[in-house]
């Protein structure tokens, strides 16, 4: 009894002492270029993937983001994956981390690699994308791009598109 109480206390101490470390850990999962972005999407084949491109300086992005956090929590178990990609400049990574700490998304967020010509990245995501933010792309379970959503969307807008893709039969079945 004494031993288990000591173990519980030790576990509690470990959890409490490691909490600040977790909070301080970088929330950005890494930097990605166009190729790495497409590799990322390919790895999620079999799931409906919603990618949201955002930036801390973009007011509608900031307004839209909390809806994505809640949406992901509700749809995760139904086979939906949300991925965030910050397009902030490299010098603004502190603001990016602060924004993520405030919103606390459970989904992965990446940072678009700085440098180079943004046009190459924009075109590789979708030739119809003019560069406006926020911008979201939905991929069906077979990995094909199914919809692009320009500008700020409501949660209902996202859920309508996701619902369509979840209803569609998965390719190869």
């Amino acid at each position: 009894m004494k031993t288990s109480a000591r173990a519980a206390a030790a576990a509690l101490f470990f959890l409490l002492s490691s909490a600040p470390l977790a909070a301080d850990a970088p929330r950005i999962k890494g930097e990605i270029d166009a190729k790495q972005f497409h590799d990322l999407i390919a790895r999620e084949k079999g799931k409906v993937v919603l990618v949201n491109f955002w930036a801390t300086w973009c007011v509608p992005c900031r307004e839209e983001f909390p809806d994505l956090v809640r949406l992901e929590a509700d749809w995760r178990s139904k086979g939906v994956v949300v991925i965030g990609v910050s397009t902030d400049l490299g010098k603004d990574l502190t603001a990016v981390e602060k924004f993520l700490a405030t919103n606390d998304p459970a989904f992965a967020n990446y940072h678009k690699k700085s440098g180079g010509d943004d046009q190459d990245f924009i075109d590789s995501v979708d030739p119809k994308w003019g560069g406006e933010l926020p911008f979201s792309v939905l991929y069906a379970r077979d990995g094909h791009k199914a919809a692009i959503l320009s500008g700020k969307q409501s949660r209902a807008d996202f859920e309508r598109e996701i619902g369509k893709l979840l209803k569609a039969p998965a390719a190869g079945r």
Partner: protein
Amino acid sequence: MKVLSVFAAALVLAVLAAGPAVAETPAPSIGSAAPAFALTTIDGKPFSLADAEKANSLVVVMFISTQCPYSNAYNDRMRDMAAAYAKKGVQFVGVNSNKTETVQDAVDHARKHGHTFTIVKDPDNRVADQYGASHTPEVYVIDKAGKLRYHGRIDENSDDASKVTSPDLKNALDALLGGQSVAKAETKAFGCSIKRV
């Protein structure tokens, strides 16, 4: 026959449902007629694109914002280019289509940043819709015949004007003023969505 038309309708519906949904009208293509518009400047004067085309060699229509950091990153570049190219017969026109920004906001912003080029307010974002403009800053260059010759960004480096390697708007204007075609007539960059009605 009936079955065929039902099938065709279903096919069209299926294609539409599967295709990506873009919010705005696509921009007019390079070489096509730039949509005509007439609006009021932020200092209360009438402005007509047709009149500007007649009076100048080229017209640069720039969708701008008072609040967007990306648009604001170009404030000095817009001011300097408008002044430099005015001497060469190029008129710069700023179009503010954001519903969240008032005429007074635009007046204050222009005064603060020394923007003496024409700025018009686009109520109900009709001109932004006609041009398929999605964000700020986004520019369109129109020639004397009213044809669209360039669409896209000012340059590729919003962060640092001194490190620009692809001055796309300048290249387009210089080429057109020199009687040449624009090598890179369509470019892209990140920007703020136009806040539509």
